[in-house]
């Protein structure tokens, strides 16, 4: 029982981070139909920036409380990531808006490699220990443990999602985003400047990714230039899982994927009588994905596009 509870906590924490990353993926996808392969690298840059900032602050102002350092580092990481994503969009995607759909996909892949390489130059290739800035003593919850960092992750995700939902559904900029997503040209006729909206989307996505990156690194305690790839990939999966382009879907997809992974690696062994083990976790996750998409071809929350003939 406490194992299950613990796995649920693990899954929720992991899933929350996937969800945050997936939100950025899904927003960018929704608005310009681009699988932004470099999204994971934005996360990585966010995390490594925070790592540098923390290092500097710990030496320059010893004795500052951990949470202050963490918040400051996170803020700076967000700014850096946002600026980066803004530039990436401008340089690598914007010129290709009217090109065949797969062209920006290739520049995105190129960007991803480029960012990894640059990060390797800037931060050196070795793994960096990411300091635990919040108290590390876990709370005991009916035999399961949860750390303050993990609590922070869960709450930050919830807050981010709420803010984002409100933004997209109930504000003018949100409506402008949806309109631009559908038809930038007509949105322009309404007074929306598509470039601004698209840039805003990339910036929001980057901020979420940076937050996720910092939390990812502080939760698991390590950061490196390749760290973005895997969570990026998983988050993309999660976004599709939930119905790409759909914010709620991204969150549900992310959390579900986290849970499936945690519970999957926990119970595959038992389910298959020891035949398969935790090395099949990803397979398990992908098979669940395939089954769900077979039943609901547009993801969990993705509505069937009204394809009027």
């Amino acid at each position, binding site marked *: 029982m406490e194992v299950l509870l613990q796995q649920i906590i693990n899954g929720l924490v992991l899933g929350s981070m996937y969800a945050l990353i997936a939100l950025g993926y899904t927003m960018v996808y929704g608005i310009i139909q681009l699988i932004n392969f470099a999204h994971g690298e934005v996360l990585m840059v966010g995390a490594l920036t925070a790592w540098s900032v923390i290092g500097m602050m710990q030496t320059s102002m010893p004795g500052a409380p951990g949470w202050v350092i963490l918040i400051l580092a996170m803020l700076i990481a967000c700014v850096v990531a946002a600026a980066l994503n803004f530039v990436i969009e401008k340089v690598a995607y914007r010129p290709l808006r009217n090109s065949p759909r797969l062209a920006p996909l290739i520049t995105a892949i190129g960007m991803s490699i480029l960012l990894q390489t640059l990060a390797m130059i800037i931060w*050196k290739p070795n793994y960096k220990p990411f300091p635990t800035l919040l108290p*590390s003593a876990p709370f*005991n919850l009916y035999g399961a*443990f949860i750390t303050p960092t993990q609590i922070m992750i869960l709450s930050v995700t919830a807050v981010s999602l709420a803010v984002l939902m409100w933004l997209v559904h109930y504000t003018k900029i949100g409506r402008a985003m949806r309109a631009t997503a559908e038809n930038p040209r007509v949105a322009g006729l309404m007074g929306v400047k598509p470039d601004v909206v698209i840039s805003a989307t990339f910036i929001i996505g980057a901020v979420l990714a940076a937050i996720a990156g910092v939390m990812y690194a502080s939760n698991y305690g390590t950061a490196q230039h390749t*760290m973005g790839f895997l969570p990026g990939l998983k988050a993309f999966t999660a976004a599709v899982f939930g119905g790409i382009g759909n914010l709620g879907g991204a969150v549900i997809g992310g959390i579900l994927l986290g849970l499936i992974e945690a519970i999957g690696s926990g119970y595959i062994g038992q389910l298959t009588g020891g035949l398969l083990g935790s090395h099949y976790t990803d397979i398990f996750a992908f098979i669940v994905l395939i089954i769900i998409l077979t039943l609901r071809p547009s993801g969990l929350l993705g509505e069937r596009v009204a394809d009027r003939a």
Partner: protein
Amino acid sequence: QDVQTVKIAHAGPTSGGIAHIGKDTENGVRLALDELNAQNLTIGGKKIKFEIAAEDDAGDPKQATAVAQKLCDQKVAGVIGHLQSGTTIPAAGIYNKCGIPHITTAATNPDVTKPGYNTTYRLIANDNALGAALAIYAADALKLKNVAVIDDRTAYGQGLADVFKETAKQKGMTVVASEFTTDKATDFMAILTNIRGKKPDAIFYGGLDSQSGPMLRQLEQLGLGNVKFFSGDGSCTEKLPELAGKVASVANVTCATGGISVEKMAGGQDWKKRYDAKFPGAFQIYSPYAYDATMVLVDAMKRAGSVDPKVYVPELRKTNYKGVTAQIQFTDKGELTKPAVTLNAYKNNARTPLN
């Protein structure tokens, strides 16, 4: 007297996820070559100037074979590499075809030397030795009963874990859980939670410090701070405590390295100083071996009086060289004759050899 330039290659991943380890061995080779050049050696009557040919295989077998072919074409005098078993095995065949010797200082899978090429050498204990030593220690010295085993599903991690498991079972221990992760993972919460449910006395991890560091930290988070932790050379680095965030459970770690630890060796401390002076902050694991490997190649050249592989390879087999890492001699398969294994623990977050 004319100067002959001799190229010695380093081949390993200097990009990608374990670029830091690849860089480390490359540095080892560089250090050795610099020191050799300072000695103004004469081989076969010619003054020799060594140069490094550093190639990146990105940890990819396909690229590794391309690298190997390129080095063959370039007629380098010898190769230090590759780093992983997955790249070393296919590359070995190519080196053998063109008669260039290579010494791996990190690929620990027993299969590397299986074909028995006279061009393939390994400068560290293979997984069989490391895994077994750890299991024996756990059973005999610590009298542990239940152990959980994790591996990272690489040729290295899996090989090591298998040997450990096997020996542990022979020694009467019970493997209560087998869990798996990858060499790119950072989240081990799920598998550790599983393991916690099985209440083992110890955990064995076959993999690198980039995983075992965070893993130790996550053990702590899950309240597994009192479980013993075993691992092989890939994790047995000085960086480990740092990577683990210096959590208390670092004190539970016992890990094995091939050879004697740098600190314990006569010239070890001094060597490390020289390395750090040249490559500050870059030290990982295998650079002393790469350093020695370079020296071993040159030693063979000196004895053969030639830098031509065809001439000096037979001498290589007869090596008896006192290196930083060990007294080096090869079996006819190219393995060390006496692959020493050192068990280490961490005291005050510093790696210290046991016994």
